């Protein structure tokens, strides 16, 4: 093992982990120092960030645009609702399970299409799919509560044998933080692996990747499954935080917003989506104070300007370093 020559610059990895650590610590402290409104806000950023990250697996790494994430999110949400309404006492584990299974099933369905349709056709079909789902949820009132959605109570955090206690907004925030950080680390591990490299190769040049001998279909299927599962997970978390499930969140606009988070934050970075979500949500918060529901006009314009002049997004410059 050779000794490191003196004066050699730190590898990017160390700087990255330091930055990461700082952000996590800040997020841990956040609920303790912020007023209640901003506490919830911070938790929401995490949840939406997770959803956007799941989308990044497809858009940023595999090069497949999906407008269907509202469906996965919605299925996670309604799946959790189903568990919490049908089982007494409401169980956290079961909510997670139902939500993930529901989202996973949808992901299988979408994955089938992913292998048969390319690019724009895939994007349109995911859009259509999420709308079909919306229509079903909206009109199947007996099961889904239709327009009004479903309300339920938050389950306790139960670790069998250890403890069982209600969540407080602070502990819930930490719970979400743990889930999100673990998810992020897991997805990062996957995208840095040979599997992830193949995905990126598909994004860069699909025909060539196929010609080299990779079963592009299989990789796409796994990518869609992963994306769908984590999107579903974010839906479960959202349901748990807000104690309701509503069709609004399944409407296509949510998918659109997710894509906006990706673009604003930087595709193909995994952390970009979180930054994008935070940026968008903060802007929305700020702008709507002055402009009420018309905040979307300047926000939309900012989005368009970013696409034209800053296509790599806020953190896009990190893409190379994060994915070397």
């Amino acid at each position, binding site marked *: 093992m050779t000794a490191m020559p003196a004066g050699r610059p730190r590898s990017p990895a160390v700087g990255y982990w330091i930055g990461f650590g700082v952000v996590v610590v800040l997020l841990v402290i956040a609920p303790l120092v912020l007023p209640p409104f901003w506490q919830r806000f911070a938790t929401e950023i995490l949840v939406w960030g997770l959803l956007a990250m799941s989308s990044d697996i497809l858009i940023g790494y595999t090069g497949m645009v999906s407008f269907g994430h509202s469906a996965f999110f919605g299925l996670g949400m309604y799946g959790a609702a189903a568990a919490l309404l049908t089982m007494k006492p409401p169980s956290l584990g079961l909510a997670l399970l139902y939500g993930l299974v529901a989202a996973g099933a949808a992901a299988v369905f979408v994955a089938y299409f992913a292998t048969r349709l390319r690019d724009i056709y895939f994007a*349109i*079909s995911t859009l*259509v799919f999420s709308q079909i789902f919306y*229509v*079903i949820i909206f009109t199947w009132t007996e099961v889904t509560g239709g327009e009004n959605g479903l309300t339920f109570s938050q389950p306790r955090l139960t670790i069998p044998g250890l403890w069982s206690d209600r969540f407080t907004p602070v502990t819930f925030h930490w719970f979400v933080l743990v889930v999100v950080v673990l998810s992020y680390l897991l997805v990062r591990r996957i995208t840095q692996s040979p599997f992830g490299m193949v995905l990126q190769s598909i994004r860069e040049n699909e025909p060539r990747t196929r010609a080299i001998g990779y079963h592009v279909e299989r990789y796409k299927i796994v990518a869609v499954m992963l994306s769908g599962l984590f999107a579903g997970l974010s839906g479960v978390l959202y349901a748990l935080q807000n104690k309701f499930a509503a069709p609004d969140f399944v409407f296509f606009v949510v998918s659109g917003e997710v894509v906006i988070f990706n673009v604003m934050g930087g595709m193909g970075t995994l952390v970009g989506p979180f930054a994008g979500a935070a940026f968008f949500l903060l802007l929305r918060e700020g702008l709507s104070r002055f402009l009420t529901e*018309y905040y979307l*006009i300047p*926000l*939309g314009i900012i989005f368009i300007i970013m696409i*034209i002049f800053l296509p790599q997004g806020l953190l896009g410059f990190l893409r190379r370093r994060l994915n070397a």
Partner: protein
Amino acid sequence: MDQIIIQTLHGLVNGMVLAMVASGLTLIFGIMDIVNFAHGDLMMLGAFVGASVVGVTGNYWLALVVAAIVIAVLGALLQITTLRPLIGRDPLTTILATFGVSLVIQKYALWQWGPSVRRISEPVPGDFTLFHLQYPWYRVATAVLAGLIIGGLWLFLKYGKYGIWIRATTQDRVMAQAMGIPVPLVYTAVFAIGSAMAAASGVLFGPFAGVTQTMGFDFTLRAFIVVVVGGMGNLGGSILASIFVSLLESYASIVVSPAQAVIVSFVVLVLTMLFRPTGLFVPTPK
């Protein structure tokens, strides 16, 4: 039986309006590979402008012309400012950009005209009788007018110097440039034409159901479906597909609620994409 006749008429009429929207969309896609997410919103904006003109002058036909011109100009400006800079980039960026435009237009319409539904009164009063059923004349007039406008578009493309420019640019952009055709200008013009058609169909559709901010999205979605089913870039195909899909939806609404009838269109789209992705009405490529 009565229902079937009524729904057939509905399907045909709605199909013609949809065909007008879709022809603009497919023209734009065929020539510059842009999936215009904001297309339905341009229709909605045209409907609002039309409603305002009718409100002030009481003249439906003037509203139709003014809306078409105003939105054509808007479309041209949009193309120049947001889409021209994106030429040559990943097609994904144009979908995103037009999605952004769609959001801005929807909220702008809300801001400008408020949340209440606007009405455009029927240009041609009265019903006509088919067997023992009544059907409003203005709907028939709408279908006929839509047909005339689409026919006019077809003639313009087939004959006339600019029609040749557009068709040449659609087939081979690079060679068209080499022949001296000002392709960037052609792009802007086509986008303006597509926008004008969307706006006109908005005014035509106005009397059917009232004018609201969200009417655009439904049409955008249906127009996408129709353009894919008809063959992207294929004008005749998208017209046939519009009628086909509208008829199916109308018949479906006899059995299920109108909100759910839209699923029929989705299913048609999915089946088309899986089994005949070049379009249902396009001969199978060899």
